[in-house]
Protein backbone atom coordinates (compact mmCIF):
# COMPACT_ATOMS: atom_id res chain seq x y z
CA UNK A 1 0.00 0.00 0.00
CA UNK A 2 3.06 2.21 0.42
CA UNK A 3 1.49 4.39 3.07
CA UNK A 4 2.62 5.15 6.56
CA UNK A 5 -0.84 4.68 8.04
CA UNK A 6 -0.18 2.96 11.35
CA UNK A 7 -2.36 2.20 14.36
CA UNK A 8 -0.32 2.97 17.45
CA UNK A 9 -1.55 1.49 20.74
CA UNK A 10 -0.06 2.06 24.18
CA UNK A 11 0.24 -1.27 25.93
CA UNK A 12 1.76 -2.82 29.03
CA UNK A 13 3.55 -6.11 28.82
CA UNK A 14 6.66 -7.92 27.81
CA UNK A 15 7.78 -9.85 24.81
CA UNK A 16 10.49 -12.28 23.86
CA UNK A 17 12.13 -11.33 20.64
CA UNK A 18 15.51 -11.60 18.93
CA UNK A 19 17.34 -10.49 22.08
CA UNK A 20 15.30 -12.22 24.77
CA UNK A 21 12.60 -10.81 27.04
CA UNK A 22 12.07 -7.07 27.34
CA UNK A 23 9.31 -4.73 28.44
CA UNK A 24 7.04 -3.62 25.63
CA UNK A 25 4.93 -0.48 25.85
CA UNK A 26 3.67 0.08 22.31
CA UNK A 27 2.08 -1.95 19.52
CA UNK A 28 2.29 -0.54 16.00
CA UNK A 29 -0.17 -2.24 13.67
CA UNK A 30 -0.50 -1.70 9.92
CA UNK A 31 -1.60 -3.37 6.71
CA UNK A 32 1.17 -2.94 4.19
CA UNK A 33 4.02 -4.72 2.40
CA UNK A 34 5.68 -7.21 4.75
CA UNK A 35 9.42 -7.70 5.11
CA UNK A 36 9.56 -11.49 5.25
CA UNK A 37 6.14 -13.11 4.76
CA UNK A 38 5.49 -14.27 1.18
CA UNK A 39 2.51 -11.94 0.81
CA UNK A 40 1.86 -8.74 -1.11
CA UNK A 41 0.25 -7.20 1.94
CA UNK A 42 0.19 -8.32 5.55
CA UNK A 43 -1.00 -7.18 8.92
CA UNK A 44 2.20 -6.40 10.75
CA UNK A 45 2.28 -6.05 14.52
CA UNK A 46 5.42 -4.46 15.94
CA UNK A 47 5.61 -4.90 19.71
CA UNK A 48 8.19 -2.31 20.67
CA UNK A 49 9.79 -0.25 23.39
CA UNK A 50 10.96 2.90 21.56
CA UNK A 51 13.23 4.01 24.40
CA UNK A 52 15.27 0.83 23.97
CA UNK A 53 15.96 1.52 20.29
CA UNK A 54 14.75 0.11 16.96
CA UNK A 55 16.01 -3.41 17.62
CA UNK A 56 13.78 -3.82 20.69
CA UNK A 57 11.00 -5.19 18.54
CA UNK A 58 8.93 -8.35 18.37
CA UNK A 59 7.59 -8.48 14.83
CA UNK A 60 4.69 -10.53 13.49
CA UNK A 61 3.48 -10.46 9.87
CA UNK A 62 0.13 -12.15 9.19
CA UNK A 63 -2.17 -12.73 6.26
CA UNK A 64 -5.40 -10.77 6.59
CA UNK A 65 -7.35 -13.97 7.31
CA UNK A 66 -4.89 -15.03 10.01
CA UNK A 67 -4.97 -11.59 11.59
CA UNK A 68 -8.75 -11.62 11.66
CA UNK A 69 -8.76 -15.04 13.29
CA UNK A 70 -6.20 -13.93 15.85
CA UNK A 71 -8.27 -10.83 16.61
CA UNK A 72 -11.42 -12.88 17.19
CA UNK A 73 -9.58 -15.32 19.44
CA UNK A 74 -8.10 -12.49 21.48
CA UNK A 75 -11.59 -10.99 21.81
CA UNK A 76 -13.05 -14.31 22.89
CA UNK A 77 -10.38 -14.68 25.53
CA UNK A 78 -10.83 -11.17 26.85
CA UNK A 79 -14.58 -10.93 26.77
CA UNK A 80 -15.25 -14.58 27.44
CA UNK A 81 -17.14 -17.09 25.37
CA UNK A 82 -20.18 -17.09 27.56
CA UNK A 83 -18.83 -19.52 30.11
CA UNK A 84 -16.42 -17.05 31.68
CA UNK A 85 -13.90 -19.84 32.11
CA UNK A 86 -10.34 -19.02 32.99
CA UNK A 87 -8.12 -20.47 30.28
CA UNK A 88 -4.67 -21.48 31.53
CA UNK A 89 -1.75 -22.48 29.33
CA UNK A 90 -2.72 -26.14 29.15
CA UNK A 91 -6.14 -25.17 27.79
CA UNK A 92 -4.92 -22.55 25.34
CA UNK A 93 -6.79 -21.62 22.18
CA UNK A 94 -4.85 -22.41 19.03
CA UNK A 95 -5.06 -20.28 15.87
CA UNK A 96 -3.62 -21.52 12.60
CA UNK A 97 -1.55 -18.77 11.02
CA UNK A 98 0.00 -17.91 7.69
CA UNK A 99 2.78 -15.39 8.03
CA UNK A 100 6.17 -14.72 9.56
CA UNK A 101 7.68 -13.74 12.86
CA UNK A 102 11.05 -12.47 13.99
CA UNK A 103 12.33 -14.65 16.78
CA UNK A 104 15.58 -15.37 18.54
CA UNK A 105 17.25 -16.61 15.36
CA UNK A 106 15.77 -14.14 12.93
CA UNK A 107 12.77 -14.45 10.66
CA UNK A 108 10.83 -17.68 10.35
CA UNK A 109 7.49 -18.89 9.00
CA UNK A 110 4.69 -19.05 11.53
CA UNK A 111 2.42 -22.02 11.94
CA UNK A 112 0.12 -21.12 14.81
CA UNK A 113 -0.51 -19.01 17.87
CA UNK A 114 -1.48 -20.27 21.30
CA UNK A 115 -3.54 -17.87 23.39
CA UNK A 116 -4.11 -18.28 27.09
CA UNK A 117 -4.67 -16.23 30.19
CA UNK A 118 -2.48 -15.37 33.12
CA UNK A 119 -3.54 -14.00 36.48
CA UNK A 120 -0.18 -13.28 38.04
CA UNK A 121 -1.04 -10.14 40.02
CA UNK A 122 2.56 -9.74 41.16
CA UNK A 123 3.68 -8.98 37.61
CA UNK A 124 1.22 -6.93 35.66
CA UNK A 125 -2.17 -8.18 36.65
CA UNK A 126 -4.51 -10.45 34.77
CA UNK A 127 -3.57 -10.65 31.16
CA UNK A 128 -3.19 -12.55 27.99
CA UNK A 129 -0.30 -14.59 26.73
CA UNK A 130 0.23 -15.21 23.03
CA UNK A 131 2.87 -17.69 21.89
CA UNK A 132 3.68 -17.59 18.19
CA UNK A 133 5.06 -20.90 16.99
CA UNK A 134 6.84 -22.10 13.90
CA UNK A 135 6.63 -25.69 12.69
CA UNK A 136 9.95 -26.43 14.29
CA UNK A 137 8.98 -24.87 17.63
CA UNK A 138 5.85 -27.02 17.70
CA UNK A 139 8.13 -30.04 17.73
CA UNK A 140 10.32 -28.79 20.51
CA UNK A 141 12.62 -26.27 18.87
CA UNK A 142 12.84 -22.92 20.67
CA UNK A 143 12.20 -20.78 17.63
CA UNK A 144 9.12 -19.08 18.96
CA UNK A 145 7.91 -15.70 20.12
CA UNK A 146 5.95 -14.92 23.24
CA UNK A 147 4.03 -11.84 24.22
CA UNK A 148 2.42 -11.21 27.60
CA UNK A 149 0.14 -8.21 27.88
CA UNK A 150 -2.57 -6.93 30.18
CA UNK A 151 -6.21 -7.47 29.20
CA UNK A 152 -6.57 -3.76 28.44
CA UNK A 153 -3.54 -3.97 26.17
CA UNK A 154 -4.92 -7.03 24.42
CA UNK A 155 -8.12 -5.08 23.75
CA UNK A 156 -6.09 -2.24 22.28
CA UNK A 157 -4.17 -4.65 20.03
CA UNK A 158 -7.41 -6.27 18.84
CA UNK A 159 -8.90 -2.85 18.09
CA UNK A 160 -5.76 -1.88 16.15
CA UNK A 161 -5.88 -5.04 14.05
CA UNK A 162 -9.50 -4.29 13.22
CA UNK A 163 -8.64 -0.70 12.24
CA UNK A 164 -5.72 -1.82 10.07
CA UNK A 165 -7.97 -4.33 8.27
CA UNK A 166 -10.57 -1.61 7.77
CA UNK A 167 -7.88 0.58 6.27
CA UNK A 168 -6.95 -2.19 3.85
CA UNK A 169 -10.59 -2.43 2.75
CA UNK A 170 -10.80 1.33 2.35
CA UNK A 171 -7.67 1.30 0.19
CA UNK A 172 -9.09 -1.57 -1.94
CA UNK A 173 -6.23 -3.94 -1.22
CA UNK A 174 -8.31 -6.29 0.87
Amino acid at each position, binding site marked *: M*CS*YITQIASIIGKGSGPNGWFNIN*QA*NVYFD*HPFHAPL*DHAITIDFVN*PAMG*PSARVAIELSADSAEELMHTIDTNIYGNGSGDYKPADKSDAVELFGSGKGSRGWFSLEKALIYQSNDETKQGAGLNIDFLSKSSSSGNDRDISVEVTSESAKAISTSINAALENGRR*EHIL
Partner: protein
Amino acid sequence: MYQGMLAETIFHTGHDGDNIQAYLARPLGSGPYPSVIVIHHMPGWDEASKEIARKFAYHGYVAIAPNLHYREAPGASPDDAAAAVRAAGGVPDARCIGDVKGSANYLRSLPYANGKVGVIGYCSGGRQVYIVACNIPSLDAAVDCYGGRVVMAEDNLTNRMPVSPINMTPDMNCPILGLFGAEDANPDTQQVQVIEQELKRNNKNYEFHTYENAGHGFFSIDRPSYNVEAAVDGWNKIFDFYGKYLS
Protein backbone atom coordinates in the same frame (compact mmCIF):
# COMPACT_ATOMS: atom_id res chain seq x y z
CA MET B 1 34.91 -11.19 -21.95
CA TYR B 2 35.94 -10.44 -18.40
CA GLN B 3 33.15 -9.47 -16.03
CA GLY B 4 33.46 -8.39 -12.44
CA MET B 5 31.90 -6.08 -9.93
CA LEU B 6 32.51 -4.64 -6.51
CA ALA B 7 29.64 -4.15 -4.08
CA GLU B 8 30.14 -2.63 -0.66
CA THR B 9 28.69 -0.30 1.93
CA ILE B 10 30.11 3.20 1.94
CA PHE B 11 29.29 6.51 3.64
CA HIS B 12 28.58 9.82 1.97
CA THR B 13 27.27 13.22 2.95
CA GLY B 14 23.50 13.48 2.93
CA HIS B 15 20.84 15.99 3.95
CA ASP B 16 22.02 18.69 6.34
CA GLY B 17 25.60 17.47 6.00
CA ASP B 18 24.84 14.23 7.84
CA ASN B 19 26.96 11.22 7.09
CA ILE B 20 24.71 8.41 5.82
CA GLN B 21 25.29 4.84 4.78
CA ALA B 22 24.83 3.64 1.21
CA TYR B 23 25.33 0.47 -0.80
CA LEU B 24 27.52 0.93 -3.86
CA ALA B 25 27.80 -1.60 -6.68
CA ARG B 26 30.02 -0.94 -9.68
CA PRO B 27 31.65 -2.78 -12.55
CA LEU B 28 35.35 -3.49 -12.11
CA GLY B 29 36.70 -1.34 -14.89
CA SER B 30 37.91 2.14 -15.59
CA GLY B 31 34.63 3.35 -17.09
CA PRO B 32 33.39 5.86 -17.75
CA TYR B 33 30.09 4.40 -16.51
CA PRO B 34 26.69 6.06 -16.16
CA SER B 35 25.25 6.07 -12.63
CA VAL B 36 21.92 5.19 -11.08
CA ILE B 37 20.57 5.97 -7.62
CA VAL B 38 18.32 3.16 -6.36
CA ILE B 39 15.76 4.41 -3.84
CA HIS B 40 14.71 1.52 -1.64
CA HIS B 41 11.07 0.66 -1.01
CA MET B 42 9.13 0.95 2.22
CA PRO B 43 10.20 -2.40 3.72
CA GLY B 44 13.62 -0.85 3.93
CA TRP B 45 17.21 -0.88 2.74
CA ASP B 46 16.91 -4.59 2.23
CA GLU B 47 18.40 -7.45 0.27
CA ALA B 48 16.07 -6.88 -2.69
CA SER B 49 17.12 -3.23 -3.00
CA LYS B 50 20.80 -4.17 -2.94
CA GLU B 51 20.16 -6.87 -5.51
CA ILE B 52 18.73 -4.23 -7.84
CA ALA B 53 21.91 -2.17 -7.38
CA ARG B 54 23.99 -5.19 -8.36
CA LYS B 55 21.79 -5.76 -11.42
CA PHE B 56 22.63 -2.27 -12.62
CA ALA B 57 26.34 -2.92 -12.00
CA TYR B 58 26.06 -6.09 -14.07
CA HIS B 59 24.66 -3.96 -16.88
CA GLY B 60 27.52 -1.46 -16.71
CA TYR B 61 26.21 1.17 -14.30
CA VAL B 62 27.59 2.50 -11.06
CA ALA B 63 24.65 2.04 -8.73
CA ILE B 64 24.16 3.43 -5.27
CA ALA B 65 21.34 2.73 -2.81
CA PRO B 66 21.36 5.28 0.02
CA ASN B 67 19.98 4.05 3.33
CA LEU B 68 17.13 6.52 3.84
CA HIS B 69 16.44 4.95 7.25
CA TYR B 70 19.99 5.32 8.53
CA ARG B 71 19.40 8.18 10.94
CA GLU B 72 16.63 6.52 12.94
CA ALA B 73 18.45 3.23 13.25
CA PRO B 74 22.17 3.22 12.49
CA GLY B 75 23.40 -0.35 12.66
CA ALA B 76 19.93 -1.87 13.08
CA SER B 77 18.60 -4.51 10.70
CA PRO B 78 16.71 -3.10 7.68
CA ASP B 79 13.36 -4.37 8.94
CA ASP B 80 13.78 -2.89 12.42
CA ALA B 81 14.92 0.39 10.86
CA ALA B 82 11.91 0.45 8.53
CA ALA B 83 9.57 -0.21 11.47
CA ALA B 84 11.11 2.65 13.45
CA VAL B 85 10.80 5.06 10.52
CA ARG B 86 7.20 4.04 9.91
CA ALA B 87 6.30 4.65 13.56
CA ALA B 88 7.91 8.08 13.30
CA GLY B 89 5.71 8.96 10.32
CA GLY B 90 7.96 8.00 7.42
CA VAL B 91 11.00 9.49 5.72
CA PRO B 92 10.62 13.29 5.54
CA ASP B 93 10.48 14.35 1.88
CA ALA B 94 12.98 17.18 2.42
CA ARG B 95 15.48 14.78 3.96
CA CYS B 96 15.04 12.32 1.09
CA ILE B 97 15.81 15.08 -1.40
CA GLY B 98 18.95 16.02 0.56
CA ASP B 99 20.15 12.43 0.81
CA VAL B 100 19.58 11.68 -2.89
CA LYS B 101 21.35 14.91 -3.78
CA GLY B 102 24.25 13.67 -1.64
CA SER B 103 24.26 10.37 -3.54
CA ALA B 104 24.36 12.24 -6.88
CA ASN B 105 27.29 14.39 -5.69
CA TYR B 106 29.13 11.31 -4.50
CA LEU B 107 28.60 9.51 -7.82
CA ARG B 108 29.83 12.50 -9.80
CA SER B 109 33.02 12.55 -7.72
CA LEU B 110 33.98 9.03 -8.77
CA PRO B 111 36.75 8.83 -11.38
CA TYR B 112 35.09 5.98 -13.25
CA ALA B 113 31.64 7.65 -13.56
CA ASN B 114 30.59 9.56 -16.67
CA GLY B 115 28.80 12.30 -14.72
CA LYS B 116 25.29 11.32 -15.83
CA VAL B 117 23.04 10.28 -12.96
CA GLY B 118 19.65 8.59 -13.11
CA VAL B 119 17.32 7.66 -10.31
CA ILE B 120 14.92 4.74 -9.88
CA GLY B 121 12.51 3.73 -7.14
CA TYR B 122 9.79 1.22 -6.49
CA CYS B 123 6.60 1.53 -4.49
CA SER B 124 7.12 4.35 -1.95
CA GLY B 125 10.50 4.83 -3.66
CA GLY B 126 8.62 5.59 -6.89
CA ARG B 127 6.89 8.46 -5.14
CA GLN B 128 10.26 9.67 -3.90
CA VAL B 129 11.64 9.46 -7.45
CA TYR B 130 8.94 11.86 -8.58
CA ILE B 131 9.83 14.25 -5.76
CA VAL B 132 13.60 14.23 -6.28
CA ALA B 133 13.19 14.59 -10.06
CA CYS B 134 11.26 17.79 -9.36
CA ASN B 135 13.69 19.10 -6.77
CA ILE B 136 17.21 18.15 -7.90
CA PRO B 137 18.02 19.96 -11.15
CA SER B 138 21.19 17.93 -11.78
CA LEU B 139 19.44 14.58 -12.29
CA ASP B 140 19.46 13.31 -15.87
CA ALA B 141 16.71 10.66 -15.95
CA ALA B 142 14.10 9.26 -13.56
CA VAL B 143 12.23 5.95 -13.42
CA ASP B 144 9.10 5.71 -11.28
CA CYS B 145 8.00 2.11 -10.77
CA TYR B 146 4.41 2.12 -9.46
CA GLY B 147 5.00 4.91 -6.99
CA GLY B 148 1.90 5.34 -4.85
CA ARG B 149 0.67 8.61 -3.40
CA VAL B 150 2.10 10.89 -6.06
CA VAL B 151 -1.44 12.23 -6.01
CA MET B 152 -2.22 12.92 -2.36
CA ALA B 153 -5.40 14.20 -0.83
CA GLU B 154 -5.07 17.27 1.37
CA ASP B 155 -5.90 15.28 4.52
CA ASN B 156 -3.06 12.81 3.85
CA LEU B 157 -0.40 15.53 3.97
CA THR B 158 1.81 15.58 7.06
CA ASN B 159 4.73 17.62 8.41
CA ARG B 160 7.06 15.05 6.90
CA MET B 161 5.20 14.98 3.59
CA PRO B 162 3.76 18.47 3.32
CA VAL B 163 3.22 18.74 -0.45
CA SER B 164 1.46 16.38 -2.85
CA PRO B 165 4.15 15.41 -5.39
CA ILE B 166 1.78 16.00 -8.32
CA ASN B 167 1.89 19.71 -7.44
CA MET B 168 5.66 19.72 -8.00
CA THR B 169 5.25 18.70 -11.65
CA PRO B 170 6.07 22.17 -13.13
CA ASP B 171 9.56 21.68 -11.64
CA MET B 172 10.17 18.24 -13.15
CA ASN B 173 13.76 18.59 -14.32
CA CYS B 174 14.47 15.46 -16.33
CA PRO B 175 12.83 12.85 -18.55
CA ILE B 176 10.71 10.41 -16.55
CA LEU B 177 9.76 6.81 -17.33
CA GLY B 178 6.72 5.47 -15.47
CA LEU B 179 5.97 1.75 -15.23
CA PHE B 180 2.64 0.70 -13.75
CA GLY B 181 0.30 -2.26 -13.36
CA ALA B 182 -3.32 -2.05 -14.49
CA GLU B 183 -4.39 -4.11 -11.45
CA ASP B 184 -2.63 -1.84 -8.95
CA ALA B 185 -4.82 -0.12 -6.35
CA ASN B 186 -2.18 2.47 -5.48
CA PRO B 187 -1.55 4.04 -7.90
CA ASP B 188 -4.66 2.94 -9.76
CA THR B 189 -5.08 3.61 -13.48
CA GLN B 190 -7.07 6.75 -12.76
CA GLN B 191 -4.22 8.23 -10.69
CA VAL B 192 -1.70 7.29 -13.37
CA GLN B 193 -3.82 9.15 -15.91
CA VAL B 194 -3.91 12.21 -13.67
CA ILE B 195 -0.09 12.18 -13.38
CA GLU B 196 0.31 11.67 -17.12
CA GLN B 197 -2.06 14.53 -17.90
CA GLU B 198 -0.20 16.83 -15.53
CA LEU B 199 3.15 15.99 -17.13
CA LYS B 200 1.64 16.58 -20.57
CA ARG B 201 0.07 19.86 -19.52
CA ASN B 202 3.48 21.06 -18.33
CA ASN B 203 5.21 19.96 -21.55
CA LYS B 204 7.43 17.48 -19.72
CA ASN B 205 9.39 14.66 -21.31
CA TYR B 206 7.68 11.50 -20.07
CA GLU B 207 7.06 7.91 -21.12
CA PHE B 208 4.39 5.89 -19.29
CA HIS B 209 3.57 2.21 -19.68
CA THR B 210 0.82 0.30 -17.92
CA TYR B 211 0.91 -3.50 -17.99
CA GLU B 212 -2.36 -5.41 -18.20
CA ASN B 213 -2.77 -8.21 -15.64
CA ALA B 214 0.04 -6.79 -13.51
CA GLY B 215 -0.49 -5.40 -10.05
CA HIS B 216 1.58 -3.45 -7.59
CA GLY B 217 5.13 -4.73 -7.11
CA PHE B 218 5.41 -6.68 -10.35
CA PHE B 219 9.21 -6.36 -10.32
CA SER B 220 9.51 -8.04 -6.90
CA ILE B 221 10.90 -11.50 -7.55
CA ASP B 222 10.36 -12.56 -3.93
CA ARG B 223 6.68 -11.62 -3.68
CA PRO B 224 3.47 -13.13 -5.09
CA SER B 225 2.96 -9.94 -7.12
CA TYR B 226 5.91 -10.79 -9.41
CA ASN B 227 4.77 -10.75 -13.02
CA VAL B 228 7.34 -12.19 -15.38
CA GLU B 229 6.05 -10.57 -18.58
CA ALA B 230 5.76 -7.11 -17.07
CA ALA B 231 9.08 -7.39 -15.22
CA VAL B 232 11.10 -8.59 -18.20
CA ASP B 233 9.62 -5.98 -20.52
CA GLY B 234 9.94 -3.35 -17.80
CA TRP B 235 13.65 -3.99 -17.35
CA ASN B 236 14.13 -3.72 -21.13
CA LYS B 237 12.36 -0.37 -21.09
CA ILE B 238 14.48 0.82 -18.17
CA PHE B 239 17.75 -0.03 -19.89
CA ASP B 240 16.56 1.53 -23.18
CA PHE B 241 15.57 4.68 -21.32
CA TYR B 242 18.80 5.00 -19.37
CA GLY B 243 20.78 4.08 -22.49
CA LYS B 244 19.20 7.06 -24.19
CA TYR B 245 19.63 9.62 -21.41
CA LEU B 246 22.65 8.54 -19.38
CA SER B 247 25.15 7.55 -22.08
